[in-house]
């Protein structure tokens, strides 16, 4: 089975995929979508009520899906979206559609693997639909082959969280040093719906620029963004997250942990409170381990009296008294530092299944052994 999922792949690349959360034997997974460059090898969900299809097939199968294509993300947003749209016209769209029918649920996540191996440019366009009351967990591992020295990945993702539905999307990026990554994502959340977005990038990458926005249009809808990022020397990550609280009782939380060991990490975040009883909080913490840049740009905007939005941001080095506290218990300086970094990066995410939380913890732990 595992051999079939991705033919023609080196052991080293297998490891990189596994690091990115992809189980090649599909253990603890409810299904897989595998795309290497522009080629789709595999697309299947094992859960009743949840479909995982190549986007072109899904668009042919379901007329209603066409309305959701280029609906949240504007085709003319920038040169990158236009590039993807043009390529779709020429070659047909790539990427996946996940459709979770009313009341369906997966405990083990569906995995989608976007792997850059031979070509310079990869484009994907994904649509995620969770109908009323559905609970859908996804893990997306984006990886480039060890041999792929340069390249650009463009990813469009449009997510629709229905009434009382929950969607969690955990993205683990394992790119190469000179890869450019330009995702363009948007989400709409309806009444009582919950959207969880988790982003982890521990490896060197050339340039990442993204700014997913969740539009909370339903009463009491929720969005939570968590990101954990290390900017290595030579890497630049320009990360943003936005939440628009457009319905009564909507709430959003944006939590970021950034470390630089010589690279540049920018954390932009924005919450707009535009309806009654809305709440939002931004928390951004940055650790500078080696001279580099961490730039936090939290924006909060309230438009009426009955909204509460706050932010806290802190950037600095590890406090000496924390290191010495642990040294006084017998840990040496390196152990003490690593222990504090592990704590710093430890973000527990409400609503995430154990297996996903464990994967996130494992990715973070593996990166830490390098400190």
């Amino acid at each position, binding site marked *: 089975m595992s051999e079939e999922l991705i033919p023609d792949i080196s052991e080293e690349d297998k490891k990189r995929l596994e690091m990115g959360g992809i189980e090649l034997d599909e253990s603890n997974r409810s299904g897989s979508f595998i795309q290497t460059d522009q080629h789709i090898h595999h697309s299947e969900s094992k859960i009743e009520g949840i479909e995982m299809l190549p986007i072109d097939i899904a668009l042919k199968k379901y007329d209603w899906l066409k309305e959701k294509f280029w609906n949240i993300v504007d085709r003319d947003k920038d040169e990158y979206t236009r590039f993807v749209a043009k390529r779709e016209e020429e070659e047909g769209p790539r990427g996946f559609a996940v459709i979770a029918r009313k009341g369906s649920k997966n405990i083990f996540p569906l995995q989608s693997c976007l792997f850059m191996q031979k070509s310079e440019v990869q484009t994907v366009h994904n649509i995620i639909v969770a109908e009323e009351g559905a609970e859908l967990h996804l893990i997306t591992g984006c990886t480039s082959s060890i041999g792929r020295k340069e390249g650009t990945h463009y990813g469009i993702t449009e997510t629709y969280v229905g009434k009382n539905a929950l969607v969690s999307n955990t993205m683990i990026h394992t790119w190469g040093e000179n890869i450019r990554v330009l995702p363009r994502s948007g989400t709409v959340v309806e009444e009582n719906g919950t959207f969880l977005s988790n982003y982890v990038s521990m490896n060197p990458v050339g340039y990442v620029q993204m700014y997913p926005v969740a539009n909370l249009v339903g009463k009491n809808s929720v969005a939570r963004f968590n990101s954990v990022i290390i900017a290595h020397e030579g890497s630049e990550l320009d990360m943003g997250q936005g939440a628009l609280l457009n319905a009564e009782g909507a709430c959003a939380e944006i939590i970021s942990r950034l470390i630089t060991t010589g690279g540049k990490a920018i954390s932009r975040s924005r919450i707009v409170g535009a309806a009654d009883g809305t709440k939002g909080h931004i928390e951004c913490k940055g650790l500078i381990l080696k001279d580099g840049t961490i730039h936090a740009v939290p924006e909060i905007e309230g438009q009426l009296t009955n909204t509460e939005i706050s932010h806290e941001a802190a950037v600095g080095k590890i*406090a*000496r*008294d*924390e290191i*010495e*506290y*642990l*040294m*006084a*218990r*017998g*840990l*040496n*300086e390196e*152990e*003490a530092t690593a*222990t*504090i970094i*592990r*704590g*710093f*990066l*430890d973000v527990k995410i409400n609503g995430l299944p154990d297996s996903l939380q464990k994967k996130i913890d494992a990715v973070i732990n593996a990166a830490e052994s390098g400190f």
Partner: protein
Amino acid sequence: MIIICRQITRKTGEWNMLNIENLHVEIDGKEVLHGVSLAIGDGETHVLMGPNGSGKTTLLRTIMGFSGYKITEGKIYFKGRDITEVPLDERARYGMGMMFQRPPTLSGLKLGKLLNAVANCSPESIGRFGERMKMSDFMGRDVNAGFSGGEIKRSEILQLLVQNPDFIMLDEPESGVDLENIALIGKSIATLLEKDRHIVHRNKSGLIITHTGYILDYIEADAGHMLCNGEIKCHGNPREILKLIQEKGYGECIRCQKN
């Protein structure tokens, strides 16, 4: 002042646990300790008293080896070895332990994880000590985050129990602790200091800062020292020193010229 100065070295011929000679310490270029000398024998517990700001915490943190405490003169010997220049973590591994007056909060680091990382005992023992210190429910919480005053003390003692050092320094273990918890903390400190063992077999020593002396109800202290303005004014019986402070205040000590 009538209290007799004495230096106790019960087991003669052996190294003292701790010997401090003429220690001068600066913080930010300002001298805080002006020539402190102190000797603590194996198996002995000493008490350190003195008014606020006199330099008690400074002395403990200097012995432990924290940064920011610059020794400009004098020596510290621990188990017979000159440790004046030895780094903090090595001192800890060599058998020193300290309870902090104001420990930092370690966000993200769970108490349980910290205990596992520093333990010199089995995981089962960690669990038992946790129960004993009524900290079992705190294992999954970030170290010191939102801990109450008394909980911080219990967590500090618990960390020392699993670390199991030979020489234990406690910075005001009873301050801010309710009566019931004082008993718990007092008895646990007695365990740390092997007070249940006969002096001949006892190897653990302690140096305890106290303002109230409540802790003396749980551990017999062998000697007391009075620190004023960065100088030790006298050594003697801890209860006698306390009584003197109660009756005459610190003024007497500050004026005292005998040392």
